[in-house]
């Protein structure tokens, strides 16, 4: 019998703890596939964040470090600078990367740190039960914006790819989504390119992946995908925001 589908070697056998319908699982798989296909899983070192994906260290089948909230790019900087042959990635959510860790994100990009950042944007703090995130949309109801995000009082969401596109040190910035097969394939290509850039020593790559949080959005998985398409994708347009390798 022909094998038509396999778990990537870059993933362990641990059962994911993510909620039903959450797209972290897809994104984990894409990262693992990219590492496998590029043949670098056995020299990869991942840095897990604080947030829903804190347990990433149980799922990626490579050496892992668990970092303090927002500090993953700084930890990754140390790991990479220790041995440039290490293939180093961070896997971070929006609260981690775009709020408490903004300085670490911007400055690792500014330094052109030769690492790969996987940024999962689901517009909410998932692990702590659904509070307003730096990427929560205007009007979006969360536990700490119960009347909807009031931009007059708490300001606007942070658009990470747009912001980092102004940072000279950044090499490659792309926003993707995992809402359908076509986009999953595009996300895979972007993630793979981000790792390829690192292997080739081209510098800082960040892939922002628009993701769902059915539990904290209070929506069924299919409805969550629809909500992402109708609300998040117009506010956070997909596309390449910077690509020095194409210039």
């Amino acid at each position, binding site marked *: 019998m022909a094998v038509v589908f396999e778990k990537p070697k870059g993933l362990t056998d641990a059962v994911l703890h993510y909620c039903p319908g959450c797209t972290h699982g897809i994104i984990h798989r894409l990262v693992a596939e990219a590492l496998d296909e590029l043949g670098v899983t056995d*020299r990869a070192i991942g840095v897990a964040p604080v947030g829903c994906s804190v347990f990433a260290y149980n799922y990626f089948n490579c*050496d892992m470090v*668990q970092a303090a909230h927002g500090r993953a790019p700084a930890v990754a900087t*140390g*790991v990479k600078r220790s041995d440039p042959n290490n293939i180093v990635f961070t896997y971070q959510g929006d609260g981690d990367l775009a709020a408490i860790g903004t*300085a670490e994100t911007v*400055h690792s990009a500014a330094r052109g740190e030769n690492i790969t950042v996987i940024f999962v944007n689901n517009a909410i703090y998932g692990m702590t039960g659904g509070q307003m995130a730096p990427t929560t949309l205007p009007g979006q109801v969360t536990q700490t914006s119960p009347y909807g995000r009031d931009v007059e009082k708490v300001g606007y969401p942070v658009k990470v790819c747009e912001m980092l596109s102004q940072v000279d040190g950044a090499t490659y910035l792309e926003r993707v989504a995992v809402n359908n097969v076509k986009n999953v394939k595009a996300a895979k290509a972007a993630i793979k390119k981000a790792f390829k850039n690192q292997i080739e020593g081209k510098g800082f790559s960040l892939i922002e992946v628009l993701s769902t949080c059915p539990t904290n959005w209070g929506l069924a998985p299919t409805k969550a995908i629809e909500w992402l398409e109708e609300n998040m994708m117009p506010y956070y347009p997909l596309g390449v925001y910077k690509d020095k390798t194409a210039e």
Partner: protein
Amino acid sequence: MSEKVLMKGNEALAEAAIMAGCRHYFGYPITPQTEVAAYMSKRLPKIEGGVFLQAESEVAAINMVMGVASTGKRVMTSSSSPGISLKSEGISYIAGCDLPALIVNVQRGGPGLGGIQPSQSDYTQATKGPGHGDFRLIVLAPASVQEMVDMTVKGFDLADKYQMPVMLLSDGTMGQMMEPVSLDISEVKTYEKPWAVTGTKGERKPNIVNSLYLKPDELEKVNFERYERYAKIEKEEALWEEYKMEDAEVCIVAFGVAARVSQNAIDRAREKGIKVGMIRPITLWPFPKEALKKASEKVNKFISVELNMGQMIDDIRLAIECKKEVLLCNRTGGMIPTVENVLSKIDEAIEGGRK
């Protein structure tokens, strides 16, 4: 004996770190320790595998330290008091992940932005573990530029030996003053680090560097185990120096620059026939409790000489089980006690003893 060179404390410790095998330094500018970073920025890029990186913040610097420490290489950062507060989060994680690293605190006056003159007001922060959770640092307190060198080398060794962060608790005086030093470092020990993240190379299961244990019984177990290690350190690693303690009736306890001032005061008091000596803790944690306890059986009084509002004095009282009175001779805010300050406190101890 090797030739001695005249060096500033901050530069001597930086050179000693390199000699101890440290090739990675991450820091952020802050007075009065900036010479450490400046020295490293000059030296490390010229050494194979050397990395100097000025971080965007103290927070980032300590996390870069954590990154290198995770890979099993010797790494350090240095800062001064306000910067150490910012590093506290990272220090807690480094301790929680059982990673070795050297953190230098060239103390200045506080709280808040405080001042830039020498201080010992981070004693409690350092010895009780800066950051959240149950943990300790080994804290080394040099009292000369030579000890800045020796303690740096020892600090890296202890960090590797016990897989934990070590702090070199210096102050502006030690950092800024120049003294002749020998950089003849006899032996640099190396340690196996099978836990390090170096890439599996397809030869082993993944290593995970982590401080998260959601199950309370597991976290308790990890903390219990860590404290067993700490108990061993308390038993085996306490360092101190005794000065004229043989016949002493009054015992001064002082470290760092306070010990140097105290030593002068002791010599002056001895000229007048006053029997005073000193126990100088070299490790502040583990605190030389046994030495103090033993001294408490002989001396009438203790004097704690500190550049703070009296932080070490509590540890002295605990060590001697409050069996003898402990007087405080202190200046703070960047002021250094004078020999006269210490002498008048010695007089007070003697006078009080005669009552």
